[in-house]
């Protein structure tokens, strides 16, 4: 099995080298692809953290997490409309910055509300049920969220308009860097840092880690397990909400199913890094973003196959290294 993996890796490397030599793209092309990849990776990381946090504690894939993110994108869109009507986005830079922060906060709020409701309605009654049961419930919840949004807000996609201030970008060493890309990347790094501090330095974070380690013992130590789980959902959904808004600015549209594919990819990222492992999710997501951005041109295949690359990476990782890059083996042991 291991030999096969090395063989596949060698084949891919060989293909990349031959294509790279044959096509001869300039270095700036690769740099700008790398930047695209990092920006996308930052967004994936925020969503992937939600998967990893919930998986770490409940050992369950929150299939609806991508849709929680989509709801954040919608909430953020309405906040954007609101501030645009108020005229804040045409105002001075400080006001625009404040408005943008509030928009992201609105997205986070929308997602948190969804995530907590989801936990209460669809997951909590199923604690202790066989493992397929909550997964199926999560699939149902995912469909329910998507199609409720379709019914309530309609089919037409919502278009995010960037305020003039963050339109465009700058050049660094011949490589064009869009402002939104930079903002997205910095914001996601900041949010990840915040999460890390919460998990490592606060009392609730310690409780979270204890529950992830062993629910029974944690409960005996006086930790309210239900509360910790709700808190986990709050953290994960808040990150997803921020990601939803930023993805809205990045892709310029949100629609009812725009959370599905990014959600799947973020899950891939979480698995790539080792699910249940917080730094792993961040590393895996950045890696996946870069692979996806560079992959089609490096392998010399059309960009329509971008999604296939992500899925193939997922399948290969699960087959050859189910523990992910930084994780312990969970796919067999605890599954």
């Amino acid at each position, binding site marked *: 099995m291991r030999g096969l993996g090395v063989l596949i890796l060698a084949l891919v490397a060989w293909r990349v080298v031959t294509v790279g030599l044959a096509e001869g793209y300039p270095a700036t092309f690769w740099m700008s692809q790398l930047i695209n990849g990092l920006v996308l990776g930052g967004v994936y990381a925020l969503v992937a953290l939600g998967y990893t946090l919930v998986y770490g504690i409940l050992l369950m*894939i929150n299939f609806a997490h991508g849709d929680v993110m989509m709801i954040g994108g919608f909430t953020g869109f309405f906040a954007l409309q609101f501030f645009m009507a108020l005229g804040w986005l045409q105002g001075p830079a400080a006001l625009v910055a404040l408005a943008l922060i509030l928009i992201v906060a609105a997205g986070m709020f929308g997602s948190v509300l969804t995530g907590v409701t989801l936990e209460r309605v669809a997951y909590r009654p*199923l604690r202790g049920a066989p*493992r397929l049961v909550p997964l199926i419930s999560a699939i149902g*919840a995912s*469909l329910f969220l998507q199609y409720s949004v379709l*019914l309530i807000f309609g089919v037409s996609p919502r278009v995010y308009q960037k305020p003039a201030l963050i339109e465009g970008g700058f050049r660094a060493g011949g490589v064009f860097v869009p402002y939104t890309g930079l903002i997205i990347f910095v914001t996601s790094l900041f949010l990840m840092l915040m999460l890390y501090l919460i998990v490592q330095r606060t009392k609730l974070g310690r409780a979270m880690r204890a529950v992830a380690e062993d629910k029974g013992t944690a409960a005996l130590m006086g930790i309210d397990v239900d509360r910790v789980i709700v808190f986990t959902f709050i953290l994960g959904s808040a990150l997803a909400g921020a990601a939803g808004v930023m993805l809205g600015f990045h892709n310029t549209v949100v629609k009812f199913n725009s959370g599905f594919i990014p959600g799947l990819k973020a899950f891939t990222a979480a698995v790539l890094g080792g699910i249940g492992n917080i730094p792993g999710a961040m590393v895996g997501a950045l890696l996946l973003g870069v692979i996806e951005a560079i992959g089609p041109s490096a392998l010399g295949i059309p960009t329509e196959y971008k999604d296939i690359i992500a899925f193939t990476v997922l399948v290969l990782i*699960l087959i050859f290294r189910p523990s992910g890059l930084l994780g312990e083996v969970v796919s067999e042991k605890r*599954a």
Partner: protein
Amino acid sequence: MLLPSVQRGLRIGAIAFAILTYLVLVGLPLRLGDLALPILAGAMALFFWLALRGGKSKQDVFNRQPALLFTAGLSGGLTAGLLIAALLAVFVNLTSSGVRLQPIFDKMTPPNLAALYGVAPGAIVGGELSPLAWLQQALLLTVASGVGAALVLVERWARGRPTPRISALRWIPLLLPIALFLFVLWLGMPGVTFGGNNRGTIRLLAAMVTIGAGILALRAAHPGRERQLLSLLYLAGVAYLPFTLDQFQNSVLGIVFIFVMMGLGLNIVVGFAGLLDLGYVAFFAIGAYMYAFLSAPFSSPWLSAQLQSLGIPANAPLLSFWMALPITMLAGWIGGVLLGIPVLRLRGDYLAIVTLGFGEIIRLFMLNLAELTNGPRGLLNIAPPYLFGYNLGNPRDIFILGLIGSAVIAFSAYRLDNSRLGRAWIAMREDQDVAQATGVNLVRTKLLAFAIGALFAALAGQLYAARQTNIFPENFSLFVSIDALSLVIVGGMGSIPGVVLGALALKGLPEVLRGVDEYRIVTFAALLVTMMIVRPEGIIPSTRRRRELHEEAEPVVGEDVPSVLERLAPELKSDNPDGGKK
């Protein structure tokens, strides 16, 4: 005691308000038209009943004292009524002050707005919400909650009475399918005007209910001669159905039974072997495309070029439907094994995600490999099956083929379930490590589950391709997998008659209820979640599943999984309450 009951009422009221708001936002009152008021009020009464009675474990004080029950109920109804009236007032005021709601909420166009007040007719007077409307809303919901509370009392009274036992009554459910069948026949007779324009729909519905009732009745019958006789009778009835129904009814039942074939295959993978496969549509697609390649090679640019270079005329089917059967089956088998090998080491939710990825990869390939699959333009002019020169492509014959296919697959699945292999699957589903330790060859068992399941799906796919005659990549989206999975789950995982019932409920009913098609997926999704919470074992649970899912509730914390012995024989546990638990 009064204050807690009011608090409880407030909570229930808030939930009722959330539900009503959701229903208004998705535009249900609009769709229901004149019926909106009675239906919504009835639904709310039912909701209050369910909310007030509590679960089985919650035999709390509220349920014992009528006064407290009504306090909780009425305060809940009042809360919900006032909140919904306030919401409507906000909407009305916004609209009358010129704010357009429609860009945000799709269903809130000004003409629709009036209809959305179906909850309170006559609520808008001259563009303003009339003061009376507040009262009306509050009253309506309070009455609904009162009815709900009364229902709790009625239910308790009814439960307190001994149920009469008359042995002759046992025959009523057994003979019901026969009565329904006669009803279907009667509706088809010339000169019957019952139901007017809806006669066709009623007949279709009655036919589906007949099949479903037949299955349920067979389960209620005594095993042995009684069941054998009845099943022969019912089978004869079902076999006669295609000849009496019209084109549309046959075509609906045809697709239902194609899904039965697929569901039976998925039931082997998910229900018997416990491998959650979310990419099952891939095998359905493999079967359909394989038959399409063999039957309409001229649709595929690459294939027709190859055939021409070999000197074979590409403008005719290569093989007939029957000759193609073994090849599609083989293709499905190989597809199943090819999916199975890489995922051998994965379990549970990982498996689900990887199979989902596989399904998507297959679909993306179908979409992008335009040379072979003709991309989104699809493969066209697939030949229908012929038998002795007679064209079997019409809805009636497709339905018959679906029935035959389902019967063959159901019989195979039944035999498999009770075979050595079937027991190995169940052992593997319950606990892989123990199964391996007792000598089950995991690799072989898993691969066989995937391969056999895939084979059945490929068969269904071939029949589907022959029915449609043109197939496109979007016919094979993730939703086919989800449909198939939901029908297996709703019917009851691992239960063969459950698959038929699930397919009738999930594929057949939406066809009948064309009008509410918009709400199909949402209803599905809500049903899936509710089902998991209330009755995870499905409509017709397989006996083993029911035992597994309804042992005593495990403690919320801790992960201790009961041993295999406990699962298979829960009665052992009562002797030794602490045994087996860590």
